[in-house]
């Protein structure tokens, strides 16, 4: 038998419990939302509270269509804020949770999986080149990623350098981990697909989310390092002192850096955006873990302007790429199976390039405007003997941003934002230069043997001693497509008579007794024959090296060949000139005295005006 006291105690406790429950019941009833609790055909109780129009991203991701939890996770069934917001992803698209947000089943599974392997997420090229430049790895290649690096507790000097100067520009960098360098709205998918919050714009709680990636989103990251996004717009970064000298001709970039004006890329002037040329595999990756950007980028000039490479053209009946097909469906477009289509280097169709009467036309994706695409003419300029190895950009890149000297040192006393720690931490990498420039690019020989534009990539003095690192000088050029394409190619003299283009650096080329010599404008401290911004010497036993395995300057033999024609250029400046049809024959005729050329009687080449000067085009020539 139970004692009455036990029952009484239980009764009292039950009453206390009921009182507590009554209080919670009142709270529950008061907190219960009154608005509809469904979105996109499913329960979505987030929308009972988040009812303001400005909380709606609109478009394909409109609140009414997908609700909130599809992207932001959390608990769409919950009735109270704490439970509803538990497990929420404040930054949808972030690669840490992308498999459950953008990459969830039924949404963008393929794209999300590819993005994680893309170079914009892994940044393995930046990591390997930087570590190599610091002397930490034997060659500028490797599969280590920025994510690996940021996760490390103990960092090498190169890794610290990356974590403090470079790591903001990769898709894993969370919004909270950044300082104000990128001005993006998020990381992962959002870095490109969410509208940027522009300084001075009216604040919006929820930015729009869409497939059309506008150029300003690319600019956030690609306005640095090679600065191709700036170049494309006709802008080049300068030092504040240079801006002061330029006065009103200078401008200020979105993040406060000063810039000068140059001629924009011809594609930009035609209204083409970055994504009008670059394919989805260029941007989101193709699932392959490429080491460097040049192996991931599919689009090439030939894809649009021809002549198409072998296997570079097919019909839509043969196209299997499901992402392109989805893109077309989203655009409400169809392609007849028999219609020809050009392909990127790895086989991805350039879907906005279509056959048209007499050639091809390019569709501006966002505006739907078709532009006639001019094929590469089969004229003397494009069939000039001896130029078979030149890439299109070697001649058609009008200029490139140039930072010829860089001094990097570690200041142990300073502090700097650390993208790995999401905070300012002790130690600061200080960079200084003698100023930026914009000039026609130099020429490099790529690992595949082709000649392409190059700029000083790391012509620098490095002093990492304070970080227990090395102290040395590096003289590395980097090959890139500057994105300053001009309809008109650079002229012959801008390469053959330019010490800068030939990789010798700034100085004077002169010719004595038929032999060329070079006098640097500013000799390097370690070798007086070498220009401070130079890459190689006229008679260097081995060419200068670059930021890729096998990338090099022109070697001594190539320089001799390039300079061999320099004497002829002042009179025979055009590719259509007869002397270039058979240059060896022309030289033989000259040797026999069968020409009217005064060169032979003069006894030495006549240097051009350019060769006597700085050997490069000044800023005023470009603007």
């Amino acid at each position, binding site marked *: 038998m*139970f004692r009455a006291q036990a029952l009484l105690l239980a009764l009292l406790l*039950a009453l206390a419990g009921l009182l*507590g429950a009554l209080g919670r019941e009142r709270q529950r009833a008061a907190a219960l939302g009154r608005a509809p609790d469904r979105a996109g055909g499913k329960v979505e109780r987030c929308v009972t509270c988040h009812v303001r129009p400005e909380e709606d991203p609109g478009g394909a991701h409109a609140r009414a269509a997908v609700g909130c939890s599809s992207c932001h996770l959390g608990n*769409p069934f919950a009735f109270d804020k704490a439970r509803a917001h538990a497990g929420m992803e404040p930054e949808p698209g972030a690669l*840490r949770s992308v498999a459950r947000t953008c990459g969830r089943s039924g949404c963008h599974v393929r794209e999300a999986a590819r993005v994680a392997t893309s170079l914009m997420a892994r940044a393995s090229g930046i990591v390997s080149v930087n570590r190599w430049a610091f002397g930490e790895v034997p060659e500028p290649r490797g599969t280590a990623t920025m994510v690996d690096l940021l996760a490390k507790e103990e960092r090498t000097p190169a890794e610290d350098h990356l974590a403090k100067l470079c790591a903001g520009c990769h898709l894993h960098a969370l919004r909270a981990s950044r300082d104000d360098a990128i001005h993006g709205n998020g990381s992962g998918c959002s870095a490109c697909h969410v509208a940027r919050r522009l300084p001075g714009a009216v604040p919006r709680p929820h930015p729009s989310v869409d497939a059309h990636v506008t150029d300003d989103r690319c600019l956030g990251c690609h306005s640095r390092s090679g600065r191709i996004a700036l170049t494309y717009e006709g802008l080049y970064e300068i030092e504040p002192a240079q801006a002061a000298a330029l006065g009103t001709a200078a401008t200020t970039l979105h993040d406060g850096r000063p810039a000068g004006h140059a001629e924009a890329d011809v594609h930009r002037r035609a209204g083409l955006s970055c994504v009008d040329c670059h394919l989805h595999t260029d941007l989101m990756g193709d699932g392959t873990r490429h080491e460097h950007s040049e192996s991931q980028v599919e689009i090439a000039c030939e894809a649009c302007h021809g002549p198409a490479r072998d296997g570079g053209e097919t019909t839509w009946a043969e196209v299997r790429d499901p992402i392109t097909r989805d893109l077309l469906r989203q655009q409400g477009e169809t392609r007849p199976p028999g219609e020809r289509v050009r392909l990127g280097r790895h086989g991805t169709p350039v879907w906005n390039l279509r056959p048209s009467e007499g050639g091809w036309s390019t569709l501006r994706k966002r505006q739907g405007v078709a532009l006639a695409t001019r094929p590469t003419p089969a004229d003397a300029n494009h069939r000039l003997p001896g130029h078979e190895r030149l890439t299109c950009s070697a001649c058609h890149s009008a200029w490139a941003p140039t930072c010829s000297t860089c001094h990097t040192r570690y200041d142990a006393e300073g502090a700097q934002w650390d993208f790995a720690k999401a905070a300012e931490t002790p130690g600061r990498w200080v960079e200084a230069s003698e100023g930026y420039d914009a000039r026609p690019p130099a020429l490099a020989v790529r690992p595949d043997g082709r000649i392409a534009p190059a700029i000083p990539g790391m012509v620098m003095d490095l002093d990492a001693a304070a970080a227990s690192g090395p102290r040395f000088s590096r003289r590395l050029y980097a090959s890139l497509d500057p994105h300053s394409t001009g309809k008109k190619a650079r002229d012959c003299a801008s390469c053959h008579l330019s010490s800068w283009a030939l990789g010798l650096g700034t100085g004077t080329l002169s010719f004595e007794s038929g032999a060329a010599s070079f006098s640097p404008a500013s000799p390097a401290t370690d070798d007086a024959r070498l220009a401070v911004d130079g890459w190689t010497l006229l008679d260097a036993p081995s060419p200068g090296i670059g930021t890729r395995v096998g990338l090099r300057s022109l070697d001594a033999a190539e320089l001799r060949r390039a300079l061999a024609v320099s004497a002829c250029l002042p009179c025979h400046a055009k590719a259509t000139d007869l002397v270039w049809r058979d240059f060896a024959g022309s030289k033989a005729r000259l040797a026999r005295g069968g020409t009217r050329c005064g060169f032979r009687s003069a006894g030495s080449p006549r240097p051009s005006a350019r060769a006597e000067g700085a050997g490069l085009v000044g800023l005023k020539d470009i603007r």
Partner: protein
Amino acid sequence: MILGRVTFGLLAVALFSGLALAPFWSAGRALESLETLNGATPWGFFLRGVHAFSAWGFLLGTLAHLGEVLWKRTESRLRPAVWWRSVALLPVAVLALLGGFLMRGDAEAQAALAVWREVSSSVPIAGRALAALLLGLPGADLAPVSLHHAGTFTLLAWLLTAEHGGTLLPDLRSTVLAALASFAAAGLFPVSLGPPVAPDGALLLGPWYLLGLQGALLDLPVAAGWLLPLALLLAVGLVRHADGRARAALLALAAAWGAGYLALTLRLLLAAR
């Protein structure tokens, strides 16, 4: 014994509160239906709390009563067959409660469902069939789980308890006391649900009474999920047939098992922090 009678009362409270909850639960939308019960149904959270606390009380009462029986050496009062069936009440109670946990449908329940499917499947010969029978086919809704929770295991628990106590129904006083205790606990301590989706990198915990087993499965093969409980049941069951040192050895084995289980529970809780 009073403990045994109150335990039967708790089972009755769990049964009736479960019946009251049944109309609000949906097998295809388990978590959503429970969120609705908690958030949008007047006194729904309280009813769910009463159900949970009475069921947990039933399990604790069963364990405590078993300990009481062994302590007082009164197991011999039961015929061997009744004793073995009484011992079987322990796994039946656990399985009934586990079904209730799985019926939450949140991330913790989904993870527990996956673990128990593996554990059941690891039983030789009939494992996969057993898993399908008790838990349904992978990807299916929770209807089979709910059927066994409310039907099979509750009915078995009732029958075994009734046989053990020698009465079909609990007495009124015990039931009132059990109800009052459940009301008190449900009012004072809200019963929460887990997250709908597992947070990245988080260690999801199963029901509190199986944390020791969860901790053991971190290091041991999946078959340990049924071999370890079976070992305990055999040790406890054989006590009825042993005397003297053999009985002491079996009890020591069971005590060591319990101590180890508590240690594993503690280790898991520390790891989850």
